[in-house]
């Protein structure tokens, strides 16, 4: 199996390191002749995407914002324009809504515990498979990555049985050694950690693949030099692997964080947010308010609060990423 030796991938990625500056480099000097010749074509090639983007992304993004300032409810689904403007009411109400605050807390819990665990285990898996294993590599990599590509609903269904307190996998393993497993999904204490464990299991493969690609981009000479200088495994890890992998790790952190802040399927299928809202996440709360109760204005405000949180954290993390690669 190959991560870095594919015909086009790494080269293509390497050509343009700075996406923002990519538009102008190298071609502008050839001047207006080619510019004017490509103007129409460029826009024609862009149009299908831009139309779809405008209708199915930009419009809904703006509409969500507008809806969040209204009392948009069930009847407005067919008569959207009759929704009443309520100013910031939805937002002020949100921050007095214990259920939403709990959802916000739960989502934070999911991220704070889940992201480091996913990154750490994904990194460990990458180091293990990249440095220690050269037989049956493909088997190991497929095994670790398989949860990523499987349908979350099917996976969740199985995990419900794995975690079942009476005849589940973990309960029976525990009873073998004389322990009693908790009622994972039925306990307010254990439900969230169980969902996090499942998410970590499911997502560490992505981090692993990113890290393997990153590891393979580290020049062999650097490792050799360290080893000749007598660096041990631990020193090599701390002194070389992790620092040089930093951009990869931060990128993996950013995408994992965004994914976990949006977490929806796990609680939806596994616990329905229970017991006692202990696994209610912001996305699930939004879905319920929006589509079960049709409090769409209120749910829109929720979506925007989540959006602002995600943007804030992403910008923060990207800034870290830039500072560290400079």
């Amino acid at each position, binding site marked *: 199996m190959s991560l870095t030796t594919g015909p086009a991938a*790494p*080269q293509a990625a390497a050509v343009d390191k700075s996406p923002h500056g990519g538009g102008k480099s190298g071609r502008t000097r050839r001047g207006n002749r080619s510019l004017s010749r490509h103007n129409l074509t460029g826009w024609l090639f862009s149009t299908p995407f831009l139309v779809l983007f405008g209708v199915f992304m930009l419009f809904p993004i703006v509409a969500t914002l507008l809806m969040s300032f209204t009392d948009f409810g069930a009847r407005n689904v067919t008569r959207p324009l009759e929704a009443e403007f309520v100013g910031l009411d939805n937002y002020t109400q949100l921050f007095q809504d214990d259920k939403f605050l709990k959802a916000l807390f739960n989502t934070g819990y999911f991220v704070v515990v889940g992201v480091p665990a996913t990154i750490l285990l994904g990194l460990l*898996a990458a180091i293990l498979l990249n440095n220690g294993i050269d037989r049956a590599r493909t088997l190991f990599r497929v095994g670790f990555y398989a949860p990523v590509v499987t349908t979350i609903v099917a996976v969740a269904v199985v995990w419900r049985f794995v975690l079942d307190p009476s*005849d589940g996998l973990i309960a029976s393993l525990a009873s073998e050694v004389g322990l009693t497993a908790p009622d994972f999904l039925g306990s307010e204490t254990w439900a969230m950690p169980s969902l996090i464990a499942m998410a970590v*299991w499911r997502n560490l493969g992505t981090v692993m693949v990113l890290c393997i690609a990153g590891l393979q981009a580290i020049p062999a000479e650097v490792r050799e030099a360290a080893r000749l200088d007598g660096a041990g495994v631990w020193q090599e890890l701390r002194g070389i692997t992790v620092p040089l992998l930093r951009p990869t790790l931060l990128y993996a952190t950013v995408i994992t964080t965004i994914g976990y802040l949006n977490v929806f399927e796990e609680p939806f299928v596994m616990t329905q947010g229970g017991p006692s809202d202990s696994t209610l996440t912001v996305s699930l709360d939004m879905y319920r308010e929006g589509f079960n109760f049709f409090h769409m204005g209120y749910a829109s405000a929720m979506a925007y609060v989540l959006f602002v949180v995600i943007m804030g954290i992403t910008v923060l993390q990207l800034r870290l990423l830039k500072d560290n690669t400079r």
Partner: protein
Amino acid sequence: MTAKTDETTETAKTAGTAGTAANARAPRRTGRARTPLLYVIASVALLVMAAPFLWMALSAFKTKQDLTASPPVWIPSRWTLDNFTSLLDQLDMPQYFLNSLIVAVLVTVSNLLFCSMLGYALAKLDFTGRSKVFAVVLAALMVPGNLMILPLYVLMNGLGLIDTYAGLVLPFAAGAFGVFLMRQFTLSVPDELLEAARLDGAGEWYIFWRIVIPLVKPALATLTIFTFLGSWNNFIWPLIATNDPDKYTLPVALATFANDPNRTVGGGNGMLMAGSLLVVLPVLAVFAVLQRHFTQGIATAGLK
């Protein structure tokens, strides 16, 4: 891997980078002693990762007695297809399968076309506003999908597209990730080739279709896999955009069945495992065959 790896750990470490043979001659203080232990650790981890899949696959063939046995049995004492037959009796699995397939194929085809078109324009055509269009693509990459589902539902409802394939496909018909991927790959196509074709009088569509597309096939393969799988596994939008069970996609049907309080406990669980297996199996099969492209795609996205 470029290098043909030999049996030592040390070579494995460097095999992926440049494939230079010189690296293999490094001192191996830690190599051999560490290897068996690493294999043990990796195998245990692999077993943990695979356990839910094994459990799913084996349970699908278990009898009611085996399913409810305590302590649970791993290997069915009697293999049976009952779970599959009663699943097919109770749920219209072929229809859900067809729905998932139609939606995934349409989403994939439209993404391949539109994303490669815009990818080409962004990589190779100078046009006023190009950097702005690219900025839009990058911004779209960062917007969480849940942000737009509420008005999207209202819009689709207004257009009469709830419970239609169009309603399931259109919001995903052209993704920013695909554009980004295609742009990155298209940048590696030599400008000289395109200029030569232009001098020969070729039109931009001809150049795109006859020169660029064949050269970016690896990227198209990656995009195909990602888009198809993304669509196949998509859950929240099909959940919202379908009310009519005839239009459910597989995950929605499975979730509805899983959360149905009327589902009989013992046999129902076996059916659930059988259903999960049917949903997961095609995906795992495709992945096992094409995993090189998957990991390449992920790696490419990460190297940006």
